């Protein structure tokens, strides 16, 4: 399909939230390996708040903004700031839009990637969620398709590649930084969350 209506976007973001909530234990364990173990419960808290706000009638831009604001205000920690920024930072791409289409989504992802990199003060390679967002944005760009399922599939693929690549990185920010070389071998928890978000979008599109 080529576009999602406003109410489909709301539904899709609800599926995204539920997917993150479902994966709480995966995220906990990933954060226990390199950080303090709260990434799963943090995302759950944010996503539960997002679900409360994701009601029919929201514009595309507002649906993304609301999701970001819920996460920013309820998740806390590094993830609250970066995932809040992820959903809000590129939401301008949907300004005035009545639908979500591939071009706007590509725009959203590219802007969000810039926003989180700026907020976190990190480029790729620091072993953060930026390492999943950036390749996802590039994959969407490279795909240059107008089919949303194709686009979301590429995005998830890019994110998963980023998760995989993050294993080899030495963390230079966040709680994993102090692990130094000991962080090698573990994927970044925030990168996993990005892949879950984009994967849930793909599944939603596939279900239509």
């Amino acid at each position, binding site marked *: 399909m080529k576009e999602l209506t406003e109410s489909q976007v709301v539904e899709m973001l609800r599926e995204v939230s539920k997917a993150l909530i479902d994966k709480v234990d995966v995220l*906990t364990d990933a954060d*226990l390996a390199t*950080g*303090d*173990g*709260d990434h*799963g*419960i*943090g995302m759950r*808290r944010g996503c539960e708040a997002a679900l409360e706000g994701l009601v029919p009638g929201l514009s595309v831009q507002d649906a993304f903004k609301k999701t970001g604001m819920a996460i*920013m*205000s*309820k*998740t*806390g*920690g*590094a*993830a*609250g*700031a*970066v995932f809040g920024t992820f959903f809000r930072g590129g939401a301008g791409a949907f300004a005035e839009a009545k639908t979500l289409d591939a071009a706007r989504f590509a725009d959203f992802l590219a802007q969000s990637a810039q926003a989180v990199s700026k*907020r*976190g003060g990190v480029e790729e390679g620091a072993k953060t969620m930026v390492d999943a967002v950036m390749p996802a944005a590039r994959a969407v760009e490279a795909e240059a398709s107008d089919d949303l399922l194709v686009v979301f599939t590429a995005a998830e693929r890019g994110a998963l590649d980023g998760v995989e690549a993050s294993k080899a990185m030495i963390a230079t*920010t*966040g*709680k*994993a*930084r*102090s*692990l*130094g070389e*000991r962080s090698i071998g573990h994927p970044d928890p925030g990168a996993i969350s990005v892949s879950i978000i984009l994967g849930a979008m793909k599944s939603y599109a596939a279900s239509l």
Partner: protein
Amino acid sequence: MAKVPKKILNDPRNVVTEMLDGLALANDGRVERLDGKDILIRTDLPDSKVTLLIGGGSGHEPIFHGFVGKNMGDAAACGQVFAAPSPDTIVDAAMAAHRGKGVLFLYGNYAGDNMNFDIASELLEEEDIDVRTVRVNDDVAAAPPERADDRRGIAGDIYAIKVAGGAAGECDTLDEVERIARKAVGNLRSMGVAVAAGSIPETGKLTFELADDEIEIGMGAHGEAGIAKQKMTSADEVADQLMERILGDISLGEGDEIALMINNLGATTMMEMLIVNRRVRQILADRGIIVHRTDVGTYLTVQEMAGFSITVMKLDDELKHYLDLPARSVGLSNM
């Protein structure tokens, strides 16, 4: 993974709210929760003063919520366990505590805290509130001196809050309070050792693993890796190791004065800390370093982690003055 500690709690998802309610009640009227938010604020704020806003993740007890009061924080923005507070919480706390002379943000240097406080600071600037930021980075184990900006804030937070709180109580301008807080932070060095892990109530999982005969030197306040895992050794040797690192990182000589803190990371007995204090004092005496004051107790925990940290703050007359100003709160002086 090792057995998780038994805890007496209600719903583990509500620990922060219930704890803050309990804390406000324990403060005998000197602080209150702000509108049911995760914010503690003084009830006795003067009409005009420079505001000191402190905050960070919860679970490091009694910091930060336990250090709100006269000559300490004017308000604390509290996050969930081990998670920085959100920008809204910080903004709400700052707005409520602002008394016309600007706000100093003072908190531990972590990516999560930095981002959330920075976002808050941008939002407050839109409200024309003057905000300055000082980040505590006392953990010498976290990075070498040339990358001191990468260092975490651990128990040095308490002395920093105490000095900045005193300055915010007495000084007239945000510039002056910021200068003094920066000096305190520049003079702070800490390092810890962990012998057993703590846990987050909501996950019920221990944050790291250590073998039965292992300890981790330099471990951070959320279980972040330290310098090295090593075999359990004697109190004197552990004290020697920590003090070597700390004293190697700051210029301190004959006749210099310091404040000395030995902080319980949670489940360690006071006996262990006092035995360590004995050795620390021998080391300091050998170098002719004078201990102006000692604080041995529970100031910044990692839930039930076992272990302790040592903090040294180099003093001058100004720092001494503000550090020693009287203050009373649940986390500080109970009697």
